């Protein structure tokens, strides 16, 4: 390592620290302060460490609304990501492997799903007609609809790198089409699947606007919407707000740490050579 590389390394680390860690430390500090000190919103050492008290306050606010929000958000995230992966892979597989004159039309629809911006009011109108408005499952379907085009494209291009011989070998071995998909193709899609799990689950868990539009109602609250609990027009309890932010940030962080190595492995592994 040359001297120059050494110093650029140091500078990069410091920059990363400032950009990523400082805000996090700010949140953590504010989250343990008392109400008065937190209201200054400055980067100072906390006078009192009220971690446990603030935590209990945040969790128990409005009849334990945060726990309900965790529950709702988890259901939406798990349900939507599972459907995105299964349907994305299935559609991508059929679209890549089976040539028909419908392919162009279907592919056009997928692209349209990626390009055309969603319109809120007509969507609500459709959901009301289907009886899905203000339901958790309605929210799941919305997230699937918004994310499906992207995952279909991702899967389709990856499946193009899997040799067709594998499908044919499995067919000769006696596998039916669904078995070929589940036992040969799907396991080989793991790099894409892991990437999608991380990207989509974090995006859906952290989604603020879509639940705001499509999922009104106190019993339907999701984690991001609990941030409203401590904000009002005239006063904001910054210590509790930041404690809430801290708590909401933790699940995506866990997902990321858990899958981090596989993401990197997946991105470098590329196609299936063998």
């Amino acid at each position, binding site marked *: 390592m040359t001297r120059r590389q050494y110093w650029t390394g140091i500078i990069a680390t410091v920059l990363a620290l400032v950009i990523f860690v400082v805000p996090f430390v700010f949140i953590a500090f504010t989250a343990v302060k008392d109400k008065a000190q937190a209201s200054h919103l400055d980067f100072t050492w906390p006078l009192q460490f009220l971690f446990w008290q603030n935590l209990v306050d945040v969790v128990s606010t409005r009849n334990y609304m945060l726990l309900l929000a965790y529950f709702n958000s988890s259901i939406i995230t798990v349900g939507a990501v599972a459907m995105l992966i299964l349907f994305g892979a299935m559609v991508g597989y059929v679209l890549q492997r089976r040539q028909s004159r419908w392919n162009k039309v279907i592919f056009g629809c997928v692209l349209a799903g990626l390009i055309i911006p969603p319109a809120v009011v007509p969507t609500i109108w459709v959901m009301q007609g289907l009886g899905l408005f203000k339901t958790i499952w309605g929210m799941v379907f919305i997230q699937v609809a918004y994310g499906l085009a992207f995952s279909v494209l991702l899967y389709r291009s990856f499946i193009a790198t899997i*040799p067709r*011989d594998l499908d044919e070998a499995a*067919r*000769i*071995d006696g596998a039916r089409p669904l078995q070929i998909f589940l036992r040969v193709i799907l396991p080989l899609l793991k790099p894409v699947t892991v990437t999608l799990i991380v990207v989509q689950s974090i995006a859906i868990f952290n989604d603020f606007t879509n639940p705001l539009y499509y999922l009104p109602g106190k019993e339907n609250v999701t984690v991001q919407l609990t941030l409203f609990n401590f904000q009002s027009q005239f006063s904001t309890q910054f210590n509790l707000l930041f404690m809430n932010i801290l708590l909401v940030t933790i699940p995506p962080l866990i997902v990321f740490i858990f899958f981090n190595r596989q993401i990197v492995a997946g991105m470098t592994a590329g196609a*299936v050579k063998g």
Partner: protein
Amino acid sequence: MAEVVLKGIRKSFGAVDVIKGIDLTIRDGEFCVFVGPSGCGKSTLLRIIAGLETATGGTLHIDGREVSKAEPSERGITMVFQSYALYPHLTVRQNIGFGLSLAKVPKDEIARIVTATAATLQLEKLLDRKPKELSGGQRQRVAIGRSIVRNPKVFLFDEPLSNLDASLRSQMRIEITELHAKLATTMIYVTHDQVEAMTMADKIVVLNGGTIEQVGSPMELYNAPATPFVAGFIGSPKMNLYEGKLAQEMGCQTYGIRPEHVLLGAEGRWQGRVKHVEHLGADAIVHLDVEGLGSLVARTTGDTGLRPGGDVWASPQPGKEFRY
């Protein structure tokens, strides 16, 4: 144990006719090789027999049963692919047992069959490896093992040796021939390499442009090629073939003489000048420039004293000339 009968098999991709009417019977237990230049439709024909492509016309019988419309897995066939097509995410053990596990064979039964098969193919030590940790020859054996456990009536091979290096190729050639001797199953083998065809086949089917040029045993094709195409394709080095005025002088459309049937000496029919000599050890291949004939290739003994630039007389061995 099965006879394979093709009747009037045709296949077109869109407007392109790739297989133009094939009638062929492959007898029970025969080792049949489809050989022909690249793009002549060998793979397509094999895939029709496998059921991976549906024929545009004609019928296919395997073991007396009409299977033209049957699923590949119901035809009693198995196929070894050029790329081996091993499942990359499964171990060797799982690769070999995949078909059995699909057929819901009990686990201990699968384990028993896989172990026995691995033993015959010398794969015991590799059972827990993934395909990417194997060499080309080992992958080849796993692919064959996966085929054997299905207990097929007909083995299909699509250029299985073309990804191997030369020495491994000749070794695998022997292994596959021995496998055929042991199993006595009908085998259909596709290759573009006439050496593989000559050394392995009971019966060679020479394909050209989607039609059969000739069917016969290796020596039949060597001794009595039915068409100039077969004459030029079978045998190495290639037969000397002449058309046009020269052939007409000899009373035919196409005149052919194999390099090994050209005698070189101090006198003969054609006078030529040595262009190039390839020494193979026991043999030497001599390339001549003959006036009025063009180039002529002759095979002679390795201790030939011929040098490039020297003059020599060449003449065909009587009774070994081909006229079409």
